[in-house]
Structure formats: C-alpha cells, structure tokens
C-alpha cells in the first residue's frame, strides 16, 4: 500500500450520505440486496440522524456562498454544515475566537444558518411546511438580488 495523497479533500456529512444513497443504501429495507456493506450501513444510520439527512447540493452550495462574507475557515464552514447550530452558543463552540472575529455579526450569522439549512431531524417533523416556505422565500430573495 502506498499513500499517494493523505488529504485529497474534505467531505461534508451530506456528501458522504449522498454517496451512500447513490449506492442504494436506504432503498432496500431488508439490507441484503444493496451493494452496501454492513459497516457502510452503520455510517448511513448515523448520518440519517444528523442534519445532513435533509440537505441538498443546492442548499449546501448556497450556504457556502453566504458564508464567504464572514471570513470563516473551510473547516469551520464544514463543521457548521455538519452540526447545523441553531443558537449563538452553539456557533461559539465551532468558530475559533468567535468573540473577536464575529463580534456583533454572530446573531446575523445564526439567522443565516437557521434560514438556509434544514433543521435537525429530531425537530423537523412538525415544521416541514415552514421549511419549504422558507426555501421559497429564499428563492424569491435570490431572484430579487439577481
């Protein structure tokens, strides 16, 4: 075995979930026919419990664009995407030296996260509709800015 490149890029939880879904994980309730190994299913099960389960490529791209103005490190954006924090104290743990770097923008940033990323699966069921309408609003806003 030879390691050509130890770090050939980071993946978000969503990308890994998407990969496993594209292999057929989740479609087969018996988990026998799909070409996914038991260890991959364990990862799939974990990721289905994370906020990544409702994300789409479009949402992720849009969010990364919105993060640009906050001057965050890639690892921080990745961590925010994976955790989907919904309050300032949660963002605070993820972003290094949050006090000096974010200052007053933190509330605005939390708002951006809550607006653009779908909520945690445990909180998602009751307000499915509001998410959709929020996305529509987003689209409308985007259209306006364009």
């Amino acid at each position, binding site marked *: 075995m030879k390691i050509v490149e130890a770090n050939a890029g980071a993946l978000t939880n969503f990308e890994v979930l998407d990969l496993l879904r594209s292999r057929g994980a989740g479609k087969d309730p018996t988990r026998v026919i799909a070409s996914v*190994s038991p260890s991959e299913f364990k990862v799939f099960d974990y990721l289905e419990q994370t906020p990544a389960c409702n994300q789409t490529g479009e949402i992720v791209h849009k969010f990364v664009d919105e993060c640009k103005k906050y001057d965050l490190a890639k690892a921080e954006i990745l961590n925010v995407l994976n955790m989907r924090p919904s309050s300032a104290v949660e963002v605070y743990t993820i972003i290094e030296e949050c006090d000096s770097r974010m200052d007053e923008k933190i509330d605005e940033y939390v708002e951006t996260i809550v607006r653009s990323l779908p909520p945690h699966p445990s909180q998602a069921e009751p307000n499915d509709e509001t998410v959709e309408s929020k996305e529509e609003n987003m689209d409308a806003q985007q259209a306006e800015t364009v």
Partner: protein
Amino acid sequence: MFFLSELEQTLRLPPYLLNQPLNEAIKGELDSLFLDKVIEKLGLCISVYDIRSIDGGLIFPGDGASTYTVRFRLVMFRPFVGEVISARLKESTKDGLRLSLGFFDDIYVPVPLLASPNHSEPDPGHKDGVRWVWEYEGENYPIDGTDEIRFRVHNVDYPPIPLEHGKDSDQKDSEQKDLKPFAPMVVTGSIDADGLGPISWWV
C-alpha cells in the same frame, strides 16, 4: 469529519473473480481489504469513493493470477482537532465517558475534560457505572443517555499495535487489558466548554 485519501495498492486478483467485470472485481477486493479498517494517520476507512486507474494485469511466473496496480480514493473518517461532533453515550464510568457514533466507538472523555465543576454519583442501573453531574449555579445537570452529546475533538491517537504478548507486561497490565481491548484509533473528546455536552443543556 470525513476526508478523501488517495492510495495505490498492488492487488492480486484471484482467478475465481475472472467472470466479473474488472472494475467490480477490483472494487470488491478493495472493499474486503480496507472497509471498516483503520489506516494509521489516515483514519477509519468508510467506503471506496472511486477507482482512479487500473494498471498492469501481469501474471508473475508460477502464479495463477493477474496482479494489478490500482489507484483509488477512500472516504476516511478522520476527525480533526477542534471539530465539534455529536455522539451518543455508550458508557459512563469513574474514568469518564465513552461515546459512540454508531460506526465508531472509541471516543473517550476523561474526567479532566468533563464540564467542571462536577461530581459523580453511583448509577443504580449499571454495575461499576457512575453518572457524571455538572454543577452550574447551584443546579445539577446530569449526563445521561437520553440526549445526543456534543464533544470537541481534543486529540486523535493511533496507538501502535501491541506486538508482544509478553510475560512480565502481561501480569502488570492484565487487568487493564481486560477492560480495554486494543483500539487502532482513539479519539479523546472534551465537553468542557459552553455549547458542549448533552444538547438539552443548551437548546
């Protein structure tokens, strides 16, 4: 949390796989070689992402199989220091917490990295188990298994594989060895900061 790593491997393809398309056969061999295994410094292999190139196919003299050089990318689970991850409680002992991600169980939060000030109380449900309680402004916040627990990665260790099942070390460490089976990758987590710990503390 997940990274891609590019590797090259010389692969002997046994002849019973000749009836399969080359790509599938090699993917299957790579799966059995790397899946759910830890590569030192690269982390735990989750999945084969793609196969970049397949070269060779030489048959060595006296060997009844073809040998390929394969370049491929793997999805690795490799938490970075400072990353915040949510996990579930697996075990709570006097040494601290053990957390699990479902596919990875070797996450430890030692006592000094628990939210402080804290104390432990015996857990009636489990033998040897304790429940850790965070004291904050006169109120007690126990860490139990109901919520997801967020921790920050403090350190990632790749302990060397123990080679010797030696005589003298065996006696000394026999108790410890019984408690902790060898783990090729150990993540040390911390929950000693605002926003970390069971989610219900903060939300």
